[in-house]
């Protein structure tokens, strides 16, 4: 007897809902490993380029190299947040738990990246402004995003029913997304001390771009892998329920 999803998937066997939901015996090992190798190569290239290729900044010295990680993880955090909100919206429109898996995976990535942004930003602040933290609007807004993603993950963990959990997360993500424009516009609305699009040496700009691409690829891969893990968890739960009768 085929195992079926409980709600809007009807009687379609759970392993055959979509082509990308099918088990993967047909995929070759190379197909699964190539993205990992590419992401790893990009990350190594970015680290080497930021250490060896990028010129040393005159005022801050080597501490300026934090920038290449800081900007990249900040971008990934924002992208994760927007992905979380987008997937939440799609869940609300289609009531398909696959979108909720994307939203949860993106929320975890966003939480990690916002945390890394705050830590690297703190090191930058110590080197540039001689303080670990200052209540500058963009720092505060990033801390708010981190707190929102933390709350999102905690609230989700308190809800048992998958569809109610998905709905709760989706609404929270959409409301939280209202804070993203604040992050982007913070330094334009207020006179903060956070630099906005500073003039950079072309080599620095290239390394920064490489770093953003490398971290985006790495976190994109993490997102896909984590989403796959969540899908397998759900399938395993369905199998266990079926086995229990």
């Amino acid at each position, binding site marked *: 007897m085929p195992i079926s999803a409980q709600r809007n998937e009807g009687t379609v066997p759970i392993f055959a809902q979509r082509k990308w939901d099918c088990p993967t015996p047909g995929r070759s090992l190379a197909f699964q490993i190539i993205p990992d190798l590419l992401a790893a190569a990009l990350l190594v290239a970015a680290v080497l380029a930021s250490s060896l290729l990028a010129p040393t900044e005159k005022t801050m010295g080597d501490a300026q190299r934090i920038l290449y990680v800081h900007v990249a993880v900040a971008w990934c955090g924002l992208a994760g947040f927007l992905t979380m909100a987008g997937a939440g919206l799609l869940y609300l429109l289609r009531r398909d738990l696959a979108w909720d898996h994307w939203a949860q995976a993106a929320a975890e990535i966003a939480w990690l990246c916002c945390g890394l942004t705050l830590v690297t930003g703190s090191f930058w602040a110590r080197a540039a402004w001689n303080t670990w933290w200052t209540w500058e609007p963009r720092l505060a807004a990033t801390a708010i995003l981190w707190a929102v993603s933390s709350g999102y993950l905690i609230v989700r963990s308190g809800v048992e029913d998958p569809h109610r959990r998905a709905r709760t997360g989706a609404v929270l993500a959409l*409301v939280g997304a209202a804070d993203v424009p604040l992050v982007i516009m913070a330094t334009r609305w207020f006179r903060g001390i956070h630099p906005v699009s500073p003039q950079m040496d072309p080599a620095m700009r290239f390394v920064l771009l490489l770093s953003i691409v490398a971290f985006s690829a790495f976190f994109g891969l993490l997102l896909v892998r984590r989403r796959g893990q969540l899908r397998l968890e759900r399938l395993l739960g369905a199998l266990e329920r079926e086995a229990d009768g």
Partner: protein
Amino acid sequence: MAAQLWWIVHKDLVSECRAWRVWPAMLLFGLVVAFVFGLQSDLPPDQRPQIVGGLLWLAIFFAGMQAVDHSCAAEREEGCWDGLLLYPIGPAAIYLAKLGVNLIALAALECLLIPIFAALADVPLMGNPGAMLLVALLGNVGICAVGTLLSGLVAGVRHAGSLLVLIVLPLVIPVVLAAAEATRLAAEGQLGPEWWRWVHLLATFAAIFVTAGATLFDFVIRD
């Protein structure tokens, strides 16, 4: 529409006035927080306006969350959600009615807290009553719009009360900061462009969150 909103507002107010389940606790909590903050703010007179706005709005937020949490939790706990959904009105109207009840609760709280903070800190918070009224109104709308939506969302979840504060506070930090700054400037009599900038921020957040709340409440209340 207005009459339909009034049905729910009236129902909630009558329910509260008969049982006094939340408002006394909220007002008492606000008083205690005010006295605790008052004990800690032993600063020179010229520095007090710098902190009194922030302390006032933190007290309003934490005390007000009790009423906001109760607004939807009570319906869930007493099994009234289904009855509420049978009303011949849309989810947005239910949301706006719950928002209205929470705004009344916060206004009552502020009628108590603003004079007390003004007296304890010896800062003329009501020196510009019109400006203070505008800041209070926009700040209340910003806090209650998010709080009402999310209280409906977490009602029935384990540890809903503490979770609500946890998820609402990060979202309304910009509102609390803007309200605190606008309150400070109003108390200092500086109603220039800087004060208007904070008021614009408050109005923007209030508009965004009320729109989001009225749009998303349908997904919150229907299982």
